[in-house]
């Protein structure tokens, strides 16, 4: 089972090479994150809430499943951060921002 918090790194523009991306993933895995995606400008990871709180000096809270309403079909459950996540020193050379990605709504 994958960990539940969605974490995303926005990479510095000059650090989007395959070599740098491999290095970032390696550091992230060492920190306790599980890679879950990546593309042109960002990398995604999963981690448990306590791991996210410890690594990124933020607190995360669970966002419950949002039921369908009049204007949307609700949203899946997920997590959101109460404070901006801090980029750990090991990653600051490569990573511009760290985000805890909240669940999106399905518009009707």
């Amino acid at each position, binding site marked *: 089972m994958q960990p539940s918090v969605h974490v*995303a790194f926005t990479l510095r523009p000059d650090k989007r090479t395959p070599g740098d991306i491999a290095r970032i993933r390696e550091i992230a895995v060492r920190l306790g994150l599980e890679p879950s995606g990546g*593309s*042109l400008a*960002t990398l*995604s990871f999963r981690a448990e809430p306590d791991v996210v709180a410890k690594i990124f000096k933020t607190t995360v809270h669970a966002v419950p499943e949002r039921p*369908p309403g009049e204007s949307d079909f609700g949203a899946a459950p997920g997590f959101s*951060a109460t404070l901006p996540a801090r980029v750990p020193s090991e990653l600051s050379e490569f990573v511009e921002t760290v985000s805890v*990605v909240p669940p999106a709504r399905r518009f*009707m």
Partner: protein
Amino acid sequence: MPTTKTKKKSPTTAKRRSSKQKTSAPKPSEELRVAVTFRRPDDGLGLTRYGARMTSSVVMGFRPAEDTVGRALTALEKAGFKVSARGRLAVSIRGRRSDFERLFGTKLAAYNLTADAAYSERAFYYPPDGAAWNPDPGISELIDDAYIQWPHIYMDQRFNGPPSALPPQVNYHHLRVPGDVSMVINAARVHREGVTGKGVRVAMIDSGFAHNHPYFQEHGFNSSVALASGASHADRDGNGHGTGESANLLAIAPDAIFIGVKLDNEDGQVGASVLEGFQEALNHSPQVISVSLGYDLCPTDFLGNRTSNQHLTSLPNGLKALEAEIQAAVANGVVVVFSAGNGHVSFPGMMPVVISAGGVYVDVDGAMRASDYASAFDSRIYPGRHVPDCCGLVGLAANHADYVMLPIQPGCEIDERNAQHDGTAPDDGWGVFSGTSAAAPQLAGVCALLLAANPSLTPADVKQVIRRTCRDVTEGSANPASNEDRGGMQAGPGADGATGAGLVDAFAAFRQV
């Protein structure tokens, strides 16, 4: 030996994995559940070979001798199987596919089961028609036969058979796919010119895509499904959103190469984020990406309910990575379309680089007006950015936006929920819904037509052509919930607050490329 060289018959109702849906086929378990039967001690006749009607008085005659069963189980365990249950007439065993194939001299094939019933598993291994069946003599002299057990059906759901490829009748003005939507957007005229989106790669990121629905099968769309990280079951859509909205896109660009990127997980685990979906979509080299999901950028409580209508003035940290990925995709030549929202102050629909899809309602007599269901606002995060750019077809608030009849997985959340007001049944595989979630894939379909006609167009070119060829909409107003506390933006002659440039006109746009 009754079990020697028997040709196994394949399941008649199971469907073999389609080559077209390679990415969406569920994977069968390698562990098989097998029932083993024995021969009658009196005459050696196998239980499964008894030709007459089995009765309770006859059946006990097939009770095997204890020592025969013991020897058979020893042989089966030696071959890698484990006994999972033992009855008086048969024994249940479990084992790996490779061990089964070796012991019984056969080759199994993967079968997918239809989504029409709640099977315990959606795929399983079974001998195909005409498969070899040459059991090891050491085992065949001890047993009657060995049968792989089919996945069972949970009977808590009513089985109605597959949904109809044709939509049900409802007694109010609505549009059907593909014909009505294609005609009103003026895409049918583009199709008649031979341009149908052929070869253009379009990705759509959403809840899921149950394209085994007969509507999609009958139209023969070129569709595949990729699972974003954490998503499950490529052939299911428990919510129904992605399946329905994808029909809008394929109504406009029926020959596009459709790549559905599924986000949801129906096994109770956390599915993929929109960002993970976007990253997965980019792995498939799309020329167009359509997304009918987003965020409402007003202050909210921890449940996501608005606490104020004031718009946020800076992008929350949690969305910065998604913003960066979308910017990079557009800079790399991908046309990205997002819904403007249904009263939401929608992000990423407000990003300047995307095409923001708002809503226009077209009456039964062809009269157009801004939909009061769709968002229209000036972004406070991106100064100078107005939402929407232009519009697709969206229903009216008074009618719950019930406007476009769309195919969905029977009994899914939307099928059940919308049945409360849209005139369809809760399990018929059809629903009527069209907020700006419908508008985005309609506009994405038009983008695909333009790229089919002229592949050298940049995302900026596509947006410019679509906007300058829209039909002007002069009546109505947009959803007031999206415009702080200043009322719904009004439509009027020329570009306006409610509809942007107006309703997209696929043919007029096509003529300019």
